[in-house]
């Protein structure tokens, strides 16, 4: 008997969330098939890639990154360069210098940096905080106000600060937010419920259900992604239908493989290659699990993943 292929498409679909404005705006989500299963039904909005820079610029210790940004001095110039990285769709500014346990840059200074970045680019902008709850909550609301009309994505709102961020950034200033949970599917759903109960519309938030570098507990991330997308599509669970945006670079460039020098581990080869491999393998695994966007740093990773996406959709 001939094999009869039955397309596995669902009546439920992932929500569509738009970031940015005008021609370069991007739409995340919208698919009604399993991740990258474009053979079951067309995937209208292909997976997107965010190119990460920080408030202090870029990582000058990685030759490929340093070469890409060479000559760009101001944060605006660096942002412009990031926005032109082949394969990238949006720029992600990580305000790590805001951290009270680090450089502790004042909020006004961070807002000025973000404005310079936003003014320098014509692609959508996402901003990551410094992971300090108090500072982020206040800073996100100031950023949302200063960048009103830019339709930025603020990463991220957690159980501890979602109320202030949702009320300010989304409801007062019309920006988008990401709901973050740490590889806990029940908490991921609960946080979405709480944000939705505040009156935030389904097209105004995405989620980050947690991540880890490949090899560092990624199997938990993989099963979380699988279960989130399974519930969203096969159970039509409206509280898990938000697009998923996964910051990959942060984890991928922080693990031992990406950090130790070639002098200390000559048999491992150049550090840069290892970092790119960690970034690429983690990002590819996230896409297979259902991430609608990944955040990367290295031009070689962005190129590889963008080609993977193009080939699969």
């Amino acid at each position, binding site marked *: 008997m001939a094999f009869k292929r039955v397309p596995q498409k669902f009546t439920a679909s992932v929500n569509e969330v738009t970031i940015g404005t005008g021609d370069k705006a991007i739409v995340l989500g919208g698919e009604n098939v399993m991740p990258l299963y474009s053979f079951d039904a067309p995937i209208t909005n292909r997976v997107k890639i965010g190119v990460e820079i920080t408030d202090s610029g870029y990582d000058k210790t990685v030759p490929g990154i340093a070469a890409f940004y060479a000559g760009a001095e101001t944060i605006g110039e660096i942002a412009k360069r990031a926005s032109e990285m082949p394969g990238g769709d949006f720029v992600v500014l990580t305000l790590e210098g805001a951290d009270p346990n680090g450089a502790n840059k004042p909020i006004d200074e961070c807002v000025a940096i973000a404005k310079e970045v936003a003014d320098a680019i014509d692609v959508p902008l996402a901003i990551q905080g410094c992971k300090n709850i108090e500072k982020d909550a206040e800073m996100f609301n100031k950023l949302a106000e200063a960048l009103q009309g830019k339709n930025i994505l603020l990463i991220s709102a957690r159980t501890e600060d979602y109320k202030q961020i949702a009320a300010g950034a989304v409801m007062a200033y019309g920006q988008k937010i990401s709901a973050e949970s740490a590889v806990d*599917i*029940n*908490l991921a*759903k*609960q946080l*979405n*419920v*709480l944000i939705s*109960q505040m009156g935030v519309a389904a097209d105004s938030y995405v989620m980050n259900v947690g991540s880890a570098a490949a090899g560092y507990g990624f199997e938990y991330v993989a099963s979380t992604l699988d*279960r989130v997308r399974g*519930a969203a599509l*096969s*159970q*039509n*669970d409206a*509280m*898990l239908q938000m697009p998923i945006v996964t910051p990959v670079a942060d984890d991928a460039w922080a693990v031992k493989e990406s950090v130790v020098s070639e002098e200390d581990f000559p048999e491992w080869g150049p550090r840069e290659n290892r970092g790119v491999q960690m970034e690429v393998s983690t990002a590819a695994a996230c896409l297979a699990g259902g991430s609608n966007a990944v955040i990367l740093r290295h031009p070689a990773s962005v190129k590889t993943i963008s080609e993977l996406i193009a080939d699969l959709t």
Partner: protein
Amino acid sequence: MGRFIVIGERIHCISPVIKKAMEEKDPEPILKRAKEQLDAGATYLDVNIGPAEKTGVELMKWAVQLLQENFDNVPLCLDTANRKAIEAGISVYNRSKGKPIVNSADAGDRIENIDLAAANDAIAIALCAKAGIPSDNDERMMYCQEMLERGMSLGMEAEDLWFDPLFLVIKGMQDKQMDVLEFIKQLSDMGFNSTGGLSNVSNMTPKHIRPILDSTTVAMAMYNGLTSAIANPCDARLMETIKSADIIKGNSLYADSFLEL
């Protein structure tokens, strides 16, 4: 598995308020009951217009359009002995939120309602009975097979036949309860969808007892694989039980606020 489907039973012409509203084509009482049930968690709404021999066609069209226009094309279960009225209701029905349900066919006089469902790409509630109450599960299964064959021969998908085991009143037929539950298990083992008039079980019991018997019955029936019930969604205890059973069965993912969803 998908979540348990509650078909809200409260738009029923046995209620004096609804009967009057249907006679006078007064939208307000009907919309009020519909909203209460949807807010409480009903997926489908049953629209029972009674036998409605003379006015059924017009009345069902009016009710279908009224409810779907006001509640985002809410899926409906068309409940009347008047076949023409069901056809008329389906003719104006918007299926964007789910197929219409024909309530109901049986293996006896009402078997042609399966033909009606097949001809209109609708779901049919298929009561596993012919005349009176089946004496045992062998008899129920025989009727189930008769209706299944008829539906399949007319091109229906098996999943569009929602078999009704016929819930029986505890007060009077206490000894039959486990038979009904066992039959639900048999239906589930064969992969069939099922539904039924849950509140039959608590008929004639004191008012404060009904939610307890209905909830316990639905929990036991869901364990055995019941996929839907025609029930009162405004019964908070019943809905809490159904939502909890959906969590335990894995039909819905747990979150602390699951009862509010």
